[in-house]
């Protein structure tokens, strides 16, 4: 029975992954905003590293890339939620449910597809960043931790998107999926470190659970180990988003 369930989940994941790569409309949009953000931040704002108090050793390009990486991962996950919403609107998910039998199996398949699609998107973003002078971690431990963090963020975006898609079951879910993620991401030290933010904005960033995640990625790109708070925040966010997706997926029978 368990092998049967795993087989069904992988079948859904395989289908959604294939759909994601064959359809430019599904593959390109999650990459556009992060890449354009990277171009604008690293290209247009690099002078900010001259600010007194900017002490990120790897330079502004790498500083900007950290945020881009988190944004690309979050969007890769959330756009899978959008794909799920589209599938609901087209009636395809209802037909898939006949095959897999349970809504949570279907959701798990989308979740795995998010990782597969996200992995390719992240690879593209990272390759572009490396080609434009961004420094990447060298030690296997740091690379592994960075990959774990990035995939965790993909998972957070995917769980959030899947949960909303399961509840709304139409493309009207699009703003509900994307706006909270955009708000969470931009209320972090996106363009300057925390010590250089305006006081009121710094207070908001300090309580934003996405801030430790961005800081942890930045620390890893700088060749250091992230603070425990970054790993804990990522874990907590993933658990919460996962619970949201799990409860929402059971509404489909």
């Amino acid at each position, binding site marked *: 029975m368990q092998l049967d369930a795993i087989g069904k989940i992988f079948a859904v994941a395989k289908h959604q992954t294939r759909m994601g790569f064959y359809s430019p409309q599904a593959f390109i949009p999650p990459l556009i*905003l992060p890449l354009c953000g990277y171009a*604008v931040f*690293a290209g*247009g*704002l690099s002078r900010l590293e001259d600010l007194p108090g900017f002490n990120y050793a790897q330079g502004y390009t790498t500083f900007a890339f950290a945020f881009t990486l988190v944004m690309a991962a979050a969007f890769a996950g959330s756009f899978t939620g959008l794909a799920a919403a589209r599938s609901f609107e087209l009636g395809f998910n209802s037909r898939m449910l006949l095959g897999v039998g349970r809504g949570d199996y279907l959701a798990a398949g989308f979740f795995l597809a998010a990782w597969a699609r996200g992995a390719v998107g992240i690879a593209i973003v990272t390759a572009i960043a490396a080609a434009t002078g961004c420094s990447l971690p060298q030690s296997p431990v740091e690379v592994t931790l960075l990959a774990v963090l990035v995939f965790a963020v993909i998972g957070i975006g995917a769980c959030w998107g899947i949960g909303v898609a399961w509840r709304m079951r139409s493309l009207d879910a699009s703003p509900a999926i994307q706006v909270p993620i955009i708000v969470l991401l931009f209320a972090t030290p996106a363009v300057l470190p925390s010590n250089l933010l*305006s006081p009121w904005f710094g207070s908001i960033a300090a309580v934003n659970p996405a801030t430790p995640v961005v800081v942890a990625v930045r620390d890893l790109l700088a060749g250091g180990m992230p603070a425990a708070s970054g790993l804990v925040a990522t874990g907590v966010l993933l658990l919460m988003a996962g619970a949201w997706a799990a409860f929402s997926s059971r509404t489909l029978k």
Partner: protein
Amino acid sequence: MGLAQISVARRLLRHMIRQPAAVAFSFVLPLVLLAVSTGGLGKAPLLRNFPADSFLEFAVASTIVQGALFAAITVGSGLARDLEGGMFDRLTITPASSAVIVGGYTLGIAAISSAQAILFVTVSLAAGASIQTGLLGLTALTLGAVVVGVVMSSIAMGLAVITRSEEAVLEGFPVVFILLYASSALLPRDMIDQDWFRFVADYNPCSYMIEALRSLIISDWNMLTLLVGCGAAGMLLSASAAVIYVVLTRRRAG
């Protein structure tokens, strides 16, 4: 014909007011982005040779252009929807020509842009910004916002008449949004270190429109900057108007 334009403009405004999402998109989102950019880049004036004492004053101009862009997308998608659904054809059966109808849309966006400018400047003043050119500058700023709104909406309407698809206009939005930020929206052009980005900003008409509006806020009257901004706006408006005229004329002839 003036009455026809006013009627079309009123229809556009009524349609917008009845959609809270459209109002939020054009009026609230730019303010949110202004808050985020001011909060995130508040220390940028500490850079040597930064032209403003406060990033809020620096960013108001790009917020006005941004708001005009968002409103233009709403107007452009509305025109595309009318073209797609046949409403535009029904309007042209009336004595009002296509030019009058497009003029009505333009009048509507002028009203929206002036309301946006007044709102954004009021919020900025309440948050501590000041306008160096005083009341006359504020009037010029509002007029400038109307011009920018007309320019942006002409681009969106050009896209609408070419594609006749609401979805295509909405999909063009990210491209134009990127165009806005590949400019001097976040830092002055002479403070952009990366040569390729500065090259793009130098050839981006949005840079000159933003700088013209910004000069009214952060410095004394600078006629050269204002003229260059007007020139960039005029260039974009002429190109878009030509496209709209050619496409609608060919459509009528065909």
